[in-house]
């Protein structure tokens, strides 16, 4: 092995690399493959001993059951809650990030305080939040969950957008101001267009975090606004699990994420490392 600079590379080395790369990829993706295959299997195939490795045909019965019983509403809830909260977090967070990046509002202390908010474990704050939500009647409402996810994602948005905005050359904004743009117009006509890819990437990751959350949704929902991870855990039983439902619901809850992340591949490293690694 080498550290990136080219050495003698024969065809044998390349072949070995492909073999290793393929083996690793197969190992890592096998569980995902298995999940997808279960969702297409018939009950006979799922409960077959020894396990069958692929379904005889792609039958969609497991999905139809989810649609028939209305379980897919959980997916819809996830879309609403994650979508609206991401939008709000992006709006409030980007403005805050702009102020932090350009005016150094609050200095490094405020920025550090904001990112430290993200490090608080959910279990430590969800309990008092639950008590407050009970008091105001916000448990199991869209408003309650959206407010929580907005707050939960704000530190991330502020932190990431601060970095993206700092990457924009200051001269552009200055000339816009000199040309008579108001502060507000400068934001809309210069800053946001320049930061567009950063905005998109951050929005996608914000959506993914809210979409994937389990613990907040578990505690703050009952029946009305259940999100898909909570719905998923309802299929686990003490004696038997509803395998086809688990698999089909997991696939429905995973596909949007795969699509979003594949589109945002280029920003993935920066997005998941909280901006520390620029990829």
């Amino acid at each position, binding site marked *: 092995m080498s550290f990136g600079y080219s050495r003698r590379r024969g065809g044998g080395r390349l072949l070995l690399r492909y073999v290793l790369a393929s083996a690793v990829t197969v190992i890592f993706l096998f569980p995902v493959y*298995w*999940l997808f295959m279960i969702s297409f299997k018939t009950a006979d195939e799922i409960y077959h001993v020894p396990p069958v490795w692929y379904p005889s045909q792609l039958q969609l019965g497991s999905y139809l059951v989810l649609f028939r019983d209305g379980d897919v509403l959980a997916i819809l809830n996830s879309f609403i809650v994650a979508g609206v909260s991401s939008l709000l977090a992006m709006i409030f967070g980007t403005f805050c990030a702009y102020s932090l990046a350009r005016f150094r509002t609050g200095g490094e202390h405020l920025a550090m305080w904001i990112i430290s908010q993200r490090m608080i474990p959910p279990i430590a704050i969800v309990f008092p939040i639950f008590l407050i939500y009970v008091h105001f009647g916000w448990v199991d409402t869209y408003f309650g969950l959206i407010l929580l996810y907005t707050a939960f994602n704000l530190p991330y948005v502020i932190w990431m957008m601060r970095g993206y905005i700092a990457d924009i050359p200051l001269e552009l904004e200055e000339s816009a101001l000199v040309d008579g743009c108001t502060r507000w117009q400068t934001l809309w006509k210069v800053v946001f267009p320049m930061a567009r890819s950063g905005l998109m990437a951050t929005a996608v990751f914000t959506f993914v975090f809210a979409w994937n959350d389990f613990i907040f949704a578990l505690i703050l929902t009952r029946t009305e606004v259940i999100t898909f991870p909570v719905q998923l855990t309802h299929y686990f039983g003490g004696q038997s699990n509803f395998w086809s439902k688990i698999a089909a619901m997991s696939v429905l809850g995973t596909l949007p994420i795969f699509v979003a992340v594949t589109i945002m591949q280029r920003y993935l490293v920066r997005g998941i490392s909280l901006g520390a690694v620029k990829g």
Partner: protein
Amino acid sequence: MNTRPALAQRISVASDRGFKYLMIAPAILILLLVGIFPLVYSLVVSFQNITMTEVDTSFAGALNYVQLFKDSRLWESLLHTALITMVALPLELVFGFLLAQLFLERFPGRQIFVALLVLPTVISPIVAGATWRLMFDVRFGPIGQILSFFAGEPVNILWTVNPSFVYPAIVVCEVWQWTPFMFLLLLAALSNVDQSQLEAAEIDGASYWRVLRQIVIPAITPVIAVAVLIRGLDLVRIFDIIWALTEGGPGSMTETISLYAYVIGFVQFDTSYTAAVAFLVIVILTAIVTIALRRMEMVR
């Protein structure tokens, strides 16, 4: 949108000073409301004595905090959390590094491999746990089948129930999901190592291990530190995967601190005591973050 010019006018008239505070106001308000207010509230509650049966809001002193030290289940849950972190984190780091080495050199199709390998990291942890629960199933899951093939005899392990195998099961799931995270970050870091230094070292005939120890590791240490900090914090609050795999069982054998706090808060409704536990967690995490950040400054 008719109001926008008027609003813009007003904002532009206001000084930059007003503008910059106006911009951070909504975000800070939400953070105070949902971040700080609950903390203060739970600090108050932790000094009272509220349980499921009675709401006693009189000052109870350090009652709940004394209870912390007598609660063996609490300390066991902290131990479980530390155990999972200590085993999973190094494994993720090592596997991530090896993968990054494999994919460091460019070859046709590399991007596709990387894109595929990333997938486990972005799926919901609860889905990851559910997936492995299906994988590990003793009768219908493929893991037993594969092991039987290699062992040459039927292997029937109740992965999520057998006390000897629950921790390996959790670690396998955790490492499977988060190795790609380490891989991505380390791949980016390794790609940024100064090539001229590496070439110079090769011309001087330095061995692989020497190059690794003296050039590569120092160059990627800041990224390793960030990756370990992010993953370490996630592992300390691990909840979803364990909930999906074992629900803390058998008994409370795999109960982590987050699961325990959930049980006392939302199953036993021991309100004031849960608030005290939550504070203990915050204190522990703050200590870890402070130490970690200080050490990271040292390595920089």
